[in-house]
């Protein structure tokens, strides 16, 4: 087994003639929490889409726990222990909160495509779903359809669905986007609590969230990972400063 939960080796991705990811390399240790930052359009979300199998890569290699995930479908990658959330809330909006979470744990508990078992009779599904529901603080919303939750609640549910299946590697795409200060503080606490002992990768714009959560920061500029280091070192990194002072985003102010 590799010591890296996730490893990107010179990953490239082109859409037509436009190369969006231009040889990104990144190594994430097991249990590490890495924030990916970078100016808009740098390819952060694309990188996530490549890692989670939403798009195929053009060249290079992505290793999950030491084995390549080249050409695998999202569900296959998920079954190997990688789960992701989305920038735009992606939940089952016509199902209740409870049903959303039940769906999220079914595969990992081994029920697969069963049509011979009664869902209400599955104790472990019930307990795990309940557990996650309590952690994300939505017990009182149990029977409410997910579509009618508030935005912050939907974001919490999104994280709940992502984590519920017990994946070891968690990818969160801008988990606090569009939240108020207090909401995003609560979200940070929630993420910290839910990802204990797991490998976390997240795209985030909010620097207070980044510095509050991350062990390491990876800076993506123009489809490349130009630096990946501890928050302190990143602050002092000349390359990063140049990239940001190049007029893409006011990093110092935000930090």
């Amino acid at each position, binding site marked *: 087994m590799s010591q890296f939960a996730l490893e990107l080796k010179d990953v490239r991705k082109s859409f037509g003639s436009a190369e969006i990811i231009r040889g990104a390399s990144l190594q994430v240790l097991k249990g590490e929490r890495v924030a990916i930052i970078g100016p808009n359009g740098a390819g952060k979300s694309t990188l996530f889409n490549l890692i*989670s199998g*939403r798009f195929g890569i053009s060249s290079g290699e992505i290793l999950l726990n030491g084995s390549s995930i080249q050409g695998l*479908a*999202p*569900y296959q990658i*998920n*079954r190997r222990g990688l*789960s*992701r959330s*989305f920038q735009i809330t*992606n*939940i*089952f*909006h*016509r*199902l209740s909160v409870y*049903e959303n979470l*039940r*769906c*999220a744990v*079914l*595969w*990992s508990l081994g*029920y*697969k*495509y*069963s*049509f*011979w*078992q*009664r*869902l*209400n009779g*599955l104790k472990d599904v019930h307990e795990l779903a309940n557990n996650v529901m309590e952690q994300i603080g939505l017990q*009182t*919303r*149990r*029977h*409410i359809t997910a579509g009618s939750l508030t935005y912050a609640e939907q974001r919490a549910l999104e994280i709940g*669905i992502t984590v519920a*299946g017990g994946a070891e590697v968690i990818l969160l795409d801008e988990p606090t986007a569009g939240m108020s200060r207090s909401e995003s503080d609560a979200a940070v606490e929630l993420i910290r609590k839910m990802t204990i002992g797991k490998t976390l990768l997240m795209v985030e714009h909010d620097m207070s969230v980044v510095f509050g959560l991350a062990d390491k920061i990876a800076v993506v500029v123009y489809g490349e990972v130009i630096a990946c280091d501890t928050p302190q070192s990143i602050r002092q990194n000349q390359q990063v400063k140049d990239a940001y002072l190049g007029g893409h985003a006011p990093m110092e102010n935000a930090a």
Partner: protein
Amino acid sequence: MKRHILSHSVGTLLVWFGFAVLLIVAPKVFNQGASLSLLSQMGTLMIFGLSFNMLLGQGGMLSFGHAVYSGLGAFFAVHAMNLAAAGVLTIPVSLIPLVGGLAGMLFGILFGYVTTKKSGTTFSMITLGMVELVFACSLMFPKFFGGEGGISTNRVMGNPFLGITFGPQIEVYYLIAFWLFVSTVAMFAFTHTPLGRMINAVRDNPERAEFIGYDTQWVRYLTLIISAFFAGIAGGLSAINFEIVTAENVSALRSGAVLLFSFIGGIGYFYGPMIGAVAGVFLTVMLSDFTKAWQLYLGIFFIFIVMFAPGGIAGIWASYYRMFKFRKMRQIWPAFWKICCAGLLTVSGAIMAIEMLYQRSLGGDQEPIAKIAGVSLNVFESMPWCIAALLCLIGGVGFFFTQRRFIAVWNSAMAEIEVAILKGDA
């Protein structure tokens, strides 16, 4: 909490018990003329509609070719009956629906593999192609499909079991009722299994379903196979009921009908297609006895449902039940009866005009008399036309003025209920 669960399951059992009783006593209550035949048709259509709704309501898969599975099931059932009558097979009539079901399932495995590769519009298009394909085949293989005349059979075959020959319609009705009950229980149970829940998830958000470990194509495929099985059972029962199966059974027309009826009944509710089957038989079989314009009414009714009550009859019922439960009926009543009166006037005026128009163009000079609800009207006189126009006008104007008030009252009552529900849960 335990108590709650217990009382819940007792409630569910009571509903099933009530359903069984209803099936048993229905032919005793409706015992006139053709009602037994209508009940039998409703029964098969219910199974067919429920199986269709596994795809549309629960899976978000709009199939234009569901009759392929019921129709092919019916053909296999009819051949099985003929073989049994010839002594080649030993299979009792009561198990013939199972032959239909297995045949439907087989073709579900075959065709479903292709159709469920895609979802959404593409899925619909492929199913449309599929049903045309099978329909074309039905004329290419007359040995199996019987060409224009179809394949006929005789359901009275083999030795009677406990005196049951399936000759009398009442025996066929109870056979249908039995299979309806079993199929309904099974299909309802399906909605409470892991796969049954995941097909809802795939309907809501296929992409998310992929990212929690599910192959959405496989979820759709398995659901379609199960759905095709029950469609085949419905086909087998209709083969027994009518003793004839023609190419029409595998046609796009038949597929469209089940879509229409299920939608009218309400695809968002498990029992919606059952209401739809009742409405469907009324609208096609009974209404066609009364008027030549029945297809026009069916079309208008369908459009009305799609536009104003997308939840179907079940949805209308559910929302009024909610109004009643939260004691809002008194609040909406004044606006409600006014809009109903206006609507009734418009509808009666429109029906009058349509009937007279049909009489005028079909009856010609020889038969100038249109009979509407026992009243004879001469379609070449101006008076009836004026009355029809006046009814439409008064109704229309009334509707225009009452609808805004009704919508306002309705929405405010709904909003109050929403608040009450949120409070109750918090």
